[in-house]
């Protein structure tokens, strides 16, 4: 029992035959080898580490089946950089030391990128509210919030140029 699906992942169309029950996170990691998307909570849907973009919107990839992504566009952490330059959110995470062990980081960044697309000038409270679905067990939230705020400012400055 398998279906053939075609998914645009990070701008490239991939075609695979997958079992119906395969989770999207496993398709991304095991079928495509894109291991930047992490599993933190063994598929319980509570940690946010597996967050990717489905047609530009942040979703947890353990909460969907791979077959549901047929015909859709998926972006993972590997697809954020442009022409070798890190995305402003990635850059801000680096500059603000917004990671310790790094396990939650890709999910945090994918969620933050979608958040800043819809909320380009967030308050600190809005940033904290936006990140509820992403757990950091190193408790490094202060720097994560600072990085998202800095990325927002950098993106606004760039948009104003």
């Amino acid at each position: 029992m398998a279906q053939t699906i075609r998914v645009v992942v990070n701008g490239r169309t991939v075609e695979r035959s997958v079992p119906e029950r395969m989770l999207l996170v496993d398709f991304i990691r095991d079928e495509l080898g894109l291991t930047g998307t992490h599993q933190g909570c063994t598929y319980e849907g509570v940690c946010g580490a597996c967050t990717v973009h489905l047609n530009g919107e942040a979703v947890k990839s353990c909460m969907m089946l791979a077959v549901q992504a047929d015909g859709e566009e998926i972006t993972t952490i590997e697809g954020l950089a442009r022409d070798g330059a890190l995305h402003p959110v990635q850059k801000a995470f680096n500059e603000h030391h917004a990671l310790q062990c790094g396990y939650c980081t890709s999910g945090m960044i994918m969620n933050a990128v979608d958040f800043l697309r819809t909320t380009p000038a967030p308050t600190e409270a809005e940033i904290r509210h936006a990140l509820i679905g992403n757990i950091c067990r190193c408790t490094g939230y202060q720097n994560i919030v600072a990085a998202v705020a800095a990325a927002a400012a950098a993106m606004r400055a760039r948009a104003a140029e």
Partner: protein
Amino acid sequence: MYPRPIGEYHRPASLHEALQLAGSGRGGAIYIAGGMSLMQALKSRVAEAERLIDLNHIAELRGIAEEDGGLTIGAMTRHRDLAAQAGRLGAYEAIADAAAHVGDRQVRNRGTIGGSLSWNYVAACLPTVALGCGAVVRSVGTSGERVETPIDAFQKGALTTALEEGEIVTAIHFPRAPAGAGSAYRKWGIVHDALPVIGVCVHVQTADGRITGGRFAVTGLADGPARSARAEAQMAQGFAATDAAAISACAAAAAEELSPPGDAWVSADYKKELIAQLGREMLALAAARATGG
């Protein structure tokens, strides 16, 4: 946490096609909406899908529309889209109150109002708002017959609804409210935006600055959301929309009537206090919205 093998996955483009798939007489069909509850059930193997029918590509099930002065929300409308309506829902602001705090951003990007009502979890926000606001659930069965069910008859207790096998919720209708109506919803959970330990939705009617009636619904109870007859009786008797003592008494009556037992995390007394406090706050907020205050 991994699903049992799924026999078939179907992605109908129309309601008609979805109903045909479900009604093929083979049984074992499960609809998936946003999947934010169902995927958990499939992964923990509480639920099993011989045939999974995905409703995410049926355009006619999405959207928010005014209808005869009321509001009709397509079943596949996502929490994110409802939250974005804050300030534009008139007598039904409680919908946006609830939708803005379901789970987290990722959940709100996928989860739907129709899915939430169909699942009818004991601690869920949108079913409570639908009950508090007196919504009507529109559905269609595999025979093609369209049905309208008042929310009180639709909700049948924990994880149970009036839906029959193969029936799909198509929309939730919030009837035209007279002038001077308002609503509000808030929950309290163990962590921010978590499933509610207690959530309260209040819908009030006002006239000349007085509450003249309304509905008072609570979630976090053992058998799913329920209304407080005692609180609603006090609202029907009437009191000034800014009468803090009367508002407190009304909420206290609800707490006394519906108070659920404690659990491992929250004592019975604490839950009672939550109903009283959230009830006061939501009555006052709904009344303020209703009177333009």
